[in-house]
């Protein structure tokens, strides 16, 4: 029975993903897009010069949750590769970590979420975002999901995001020079309230120093005007045209408050299975002149690792060091709970935690 | 027709060993009888493998009697070939053997020199039979072993003809059990393939064979060099020498007995009896012995349950037996102990073994640094020194001469001659 159902499902899915035509990338109206056509593919040429690339990534996990507070452990990490050889940072610490405590506060007839930051090393506070920027209304449209108030955990994650931007600006300022490349994990878009000013800071330094400010996204949820996934469509186009080697495909350009970039799809290794969304900061995005081909070439050189062909090794490394593992979370949770207990506050906090942790009891009952 | 030759092989005559007049007579009688027997057998030569005399300078009376007999044999053109034994040895050729050699009565056949670290010996060829004789004399305390160790055996083994090797040492492989403590050399130190190995030093006669050493012969003592020899004789061991017939090879080896007296052996075990009981019983038993004209050997052993060992008087025993007509009485009471007055326990009743053990045990308790005074070496030195110091003044020997003799021999053993000369 399930086989029959699966067969019919696959058939209808197939119909729903017709790849007859690709249309254009489907983005906000203020994005300038280009038709999805074979002539737009550009080969990545190898360059002889050595490239210096810095990769940055962040990670966070919730340690303690209640409807009215969320405690997170946050981490931001960066590395530098020159001609694929790892270089030690000159000044900055490779990794910064901080606790963040986001709690709800009722003021002016509204519920606000405020985040306070506790760096594990006070020296690193200078790399942290301003706590004033981490105060959001629960009805902040950039945080809400549909008509629902913002989720406190989601709001809590913003601290890490802002910390990445802040740290990135310091990286450009203190570690990079002209024609060096900074690659963030993700897009260059700053959709949240108070976020654009952090990105602007990076853009300012990048412009001043002539550093390429870029971002590579692991995943891309963009569509085409024919209902296909943008990534799938570009890939199909490449196959249809027997395109081999490493290439990039300009998709769109944008210059708005929250986003200034040329958006590309890149294939960074000839044997790569995956292609990725890649963005380059440009004040006046001009696809003809502003695409830094050498930066893409250097990035391609860094994407030769067999563990994940076509994905930059620097980002693999940054992800590994930025990620907060579950066992670490447990450890931090224990420390925190121990402190709560020492201060005699467990009963009080438990009352709130138990408002939303029934599922974990159920999980425990079924052995999950 | 190939001529068959004969030679006599004697050893360990120990002339002068016995100071008692009766024993002295018997000792000389045995020697004379042996040489008479050689004359009767018409031997072509005589071989004496050491300890003809009990000391390198024997009693003059003994020497005189011995020389007379030797001259008699010599006058009949029968050469006598000899080597030193451990008793009649002299490091500087001042032994009675040397005197007889100088007088042409005896021929010392040992000749050789050390070259390139090897001892090269020269054969002596008997003019009549062409038998080739070669050998190594004994030295004090078995020091001849060092000569054997550097002996150039190959050249001796290569020599053709009928060969006799003369030596005065115990062989480790052939020692009797009761001589297990005696210094000995392994047979592998002797050159292989000789026709006859004429040995001396072991007082029991034996004729033995080992691979590559077809005939190793010890004639044994003619009479007695030590009190133990009496015991052995009394127990039935025959005394004599060997007559060997040979052509190109040995034809026959026969033992010629030389009896000079009859023996009686009596053993008494005093274990678990008190001294009074034991004495009474012993004397009663001795009464039953047929002792007339016999050499009586009495061995008393065992641990008395009470009383002193001196309660059993050797004098009393001796008197009893002499009264019964015994020619001589030898008493061995070293195995007799008393529970009440036990000294250090020892295994074995032989005085040599006991002395050995006592020295060995006591040396272990003293702190000594000189290797030569430690362990086995030290024990041996002590035993040999005691042997020398134990010697009594000979009949007719002046006191100063006696002292000088003892001193000289003692220094010899201690290897301090150069220090004190």
């Amino acid at each position: 029975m399930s086989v029959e159902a699966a067969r019919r499902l696959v058939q209808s899915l197939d119909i729903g993903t017709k790849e007859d035509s690709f249309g254009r990338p489907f983005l906000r109206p203020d994005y300038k897009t280009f038709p999805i056509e074979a002539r737009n593919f550009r080969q990545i040429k190898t360059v002889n010069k050595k490239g210096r690339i810095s990769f940055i990534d962040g990670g966070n996990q919730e340690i303690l949750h209640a409807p009215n507070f969320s405690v997170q452990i946050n981490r931001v990490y960066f590395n530098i590769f020159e001609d694929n050889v790892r270089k030690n940072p000159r000044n900055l610490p490779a990794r910064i970590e901080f606790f963040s405590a986001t709690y709800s506060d009722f003021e002016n007839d509204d519920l606000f979420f405020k985040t306070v930051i506790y760096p594990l090393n006070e020296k690193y506070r200078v790399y942290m975002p301003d706590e004033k920027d981490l105060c959001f209304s629960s009805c902040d449209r950039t945080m809400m999901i549909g008509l629902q108030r913002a989720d406190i955990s989601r709001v809590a994650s913003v601290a890490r995001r802002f910390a990445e931007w802040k740290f990135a600006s310091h990286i450009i300022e203190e570690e990079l020079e002209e024609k060096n490349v900074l690659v963030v994990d993700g897009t260059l878009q700053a959709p949240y309230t108070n976020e654009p000013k952090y990105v602007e800071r990076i853009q300012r330094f990048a412009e001043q120093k002539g550093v390429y400010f870029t971002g590579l996204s692991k995943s891309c949820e963009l569509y085409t005007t024919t209902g296909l996934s943008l990534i799938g469509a570009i890939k199909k186009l490449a196959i249809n045209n027997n395109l081999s080697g490493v290439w990039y495909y300009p998709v769109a350009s944008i210059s708005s408050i929250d986003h200034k970039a040329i958006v590309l799809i890149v294939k960074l290794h000839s044997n790569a299975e995956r292609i990725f969304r890649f963005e380059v900061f440009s004040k006046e995005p001009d696809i003809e002149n502003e695409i830094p081909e050498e930066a893409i070439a250097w990035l391609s050189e860094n994407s030769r690792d067999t563990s994940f062909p076509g994905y930059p090794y620097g980002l693999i490394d940054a992800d590994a060091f930025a990620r907060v593992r579950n066992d670490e979370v447990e450890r931090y949770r224990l420390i925190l709970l121990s402190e709560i207990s020492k201060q005699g506050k467990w009963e009080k906090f438990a009352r709130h935690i138990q408002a939303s942790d029934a599922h974990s009891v159920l999980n425990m009952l079924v052995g999950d | 027709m190939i001529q068959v030759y004969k030679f006599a092989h004697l050893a360990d005559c120990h002339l002068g060993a016995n100071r008692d007049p009766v024993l002295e007579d018997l000792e000389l009688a045995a020697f004379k009888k042996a040489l008479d027997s050689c004359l009767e057998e018409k031997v072509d030569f005589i071989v004496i493998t050491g300890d003809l005399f009990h000391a390198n300078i024997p009693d003059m009376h003994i020497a005189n009697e011995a020389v007379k007999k030797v001259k008699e044999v010599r006058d009949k053109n029968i050469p006598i070939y000899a080597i030193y034994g451990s008793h009649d040895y002299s490091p500087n050729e001042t032994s009675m053997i040397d005197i007889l050699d100088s007088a042409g009565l005896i021929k010392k056949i040992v000749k050789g020199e050390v070259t390139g670290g090897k001892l090269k010996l020269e054969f002596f060829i008997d003019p009549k039979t062409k038998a080739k004789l070669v050998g190594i004399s004994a030295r004090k305390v078995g020091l001849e072993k060092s000569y054997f160790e550097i002996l150039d055996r190959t050249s001796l083994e290569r020599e053709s003809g009928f060969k006799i090797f003369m030596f005065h040492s115990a062989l480790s492989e052939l020692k009797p059990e009761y001589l297990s403590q005696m210094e000995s050399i392994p047979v592998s130190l002797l050159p292989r393939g000789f026709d006859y190995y004429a040995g001396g030093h072991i007082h029991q006669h034996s004729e033995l064979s080992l691979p590559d050493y077809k005939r190793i012969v010890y004639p044994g003592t003619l009479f007695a060099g030590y009190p133990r020899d009496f015991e052995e004789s009394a127990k039935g061991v025959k005394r004599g020498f060997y007559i060997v017939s040979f052509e190109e090879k040995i034809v026959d080896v026969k033992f010629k007995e030389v009896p000079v007296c009859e023996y009686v052996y009596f053993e008494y075990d005093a274990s678990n009896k008190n001294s009074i009981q034991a004495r009474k019983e012993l004397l009663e038993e001795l009464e039953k012995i047929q002792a007339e004209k016999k050499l009586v050997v009495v061995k008393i052993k065992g641990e008395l349950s009470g009383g002193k060992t001196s309660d059993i008087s050797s004098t009393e025993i001796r008197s009893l037996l002499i009264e019964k007509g015994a020619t001589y009485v030898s008493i061995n009471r070293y195995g007799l102990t008393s529970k009440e007055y036990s000294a250090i326990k020892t295994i074995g009743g032989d005085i040599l073994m006991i002395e050995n053990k006592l020295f060995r045990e006591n040396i272990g308790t003293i702190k000594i640094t000189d290797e030569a005074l430690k362990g086995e070496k030290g024990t041996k030195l002590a035993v040999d020194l005691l042997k020398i110091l134990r010697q009594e003044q000979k009949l007719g020997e002046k006191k100063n001469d006696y002292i000088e003799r003892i001193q000289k021999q003692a220094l010899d053993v201690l290897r301090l001659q150069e220090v004190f000369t």
Partner: protein
Amino acid sequence: MEVVGQIVSGKVGEILIRQKSGESIELGDLLVVEEGSSLLILQVFDLCYGSQIPPSARELLAGIKLEGFDAGLEFLEPELRNYVMATVKAIARVSSDRKDIKIPKILPHFFSSVRRIEKEDLAFLTKPSNPVYLGKVRSGSKIIDVDIYLNAKDTFRHHILIPATTGRGKSNLVKVMLWSVLGQGTVGALVLDPHDEYYGRHDKGLKDHPKAKDNVLYYSSNPPAGTNTLIVNLKSITPRHFQGIVTFTDPQQDAIKLYYNRFNEDWIENIVRGVDVNGVAPRTLEVLQRKFDTVLGVFLDDSGNLRCRNRVFSDSAGMTTISDIVNALENGKIVIIDTSHLSDEAELLIGSIIVNEIFHRYQAYKSVGELDTKPTVAVVLEEAPRVLSSEVLATVGDNIYSTVAREGRKFNIGLIAITQLTSLIPRPILANMNTKIILGNEMAIERRAVIDSAAQDLSEDERNIASLDKGEAIVTSIFTKFAVPIQIPLFEEYIEQTTSKEQKGKMVFVG
């Protein structure tokens, strides 16, 4: 400090160290963690690959390379992402003054750096009185210039087992040990030498020791000049000596008893000569004669003379051979018996006669309180299962060697048992062998047998033992605080240090 690795995880008995790239940590390597002024010594017992790269990716790249594709792919930062993990155990904690060591009971500090062991770290290994030399400390395949000695008297008395397969250097080890104790006078050794390799008839051997002249006796049926003929008088043999070596049926045993009671020390001679004894069936006598011919090689020739095929047993010579040998052992000398031309049974029988004698003498000394003044006697026995295996002991019964193995310690007599097949020796005997010098062994079952009876926990050392090269060994003993890996020197090289040119004075010959 030259770091070779870092502790990354693990538990007691299984600490994991990541090897620094460019270093080569070996199985058996001794590593050190410095903790304040004290040290923790670790030993490597396993090595494996560690990688941050998933296996599929690694296999893919290997496949690409093997099949000749040039896909333009590689591993970036291979030294960071591919590495060797060493599994180690802590074997000793050394005090700050380097004089004292303890068995470690706590884990080293997490993430500690480790370095290689150095000579100074082993200052606690001192030379005892009455030393027997085993070799130098080994870390992996590297030799550390620290000598390993054990107290000879104690070690020999508590028995030594040397398990190894052929060609691993067992005889070399024993030669080195005996050379080092030669002349001390505190230990004697009886060597039953079935391959004639200890004396040095043609090559270097114990005969080359400066003190050999007074301290080494060699017995052979074909003795080189200056050595002794192996010849044993039949009177030296009693029925007890055959126990556990030669099987006799009940009627045969009864017959032997009768002959021994009647003829005492001449019992064998009378059996061989076929002298009738009341109560002994002619058939039994015939079988006994044949048996003695087989085992001893003794028979009656046509002329009625008693002869011996292997020239070792005699009715007329060798009266003092056994007592000479036993006296020598009692004086702390080494006695080597060349049994290369003898059957197994004859070899074991001769050994049995000697060992019985020394055992009973030492029992007597103990009863009168003199045992402490006597040297310890060690019996070197090759292919020990011939007399110590469970099967032999069950079928033929106990023998003097198994008696020594069980009780010898009380009487200062020990076995140095050499074997390829430890698994055949029963556990109670193995447990008594308090020093095991383990050489290489390919057979897993044998390694396990040794490990199970070792004085220290070697449960993780199977790989170490399997990888032991010739001359490499592990010493596990109640006299060592931990199982010490050693390199045994080649005998010929070892003796060069101690052989001195004897200054011989010119000898004057007097005759």
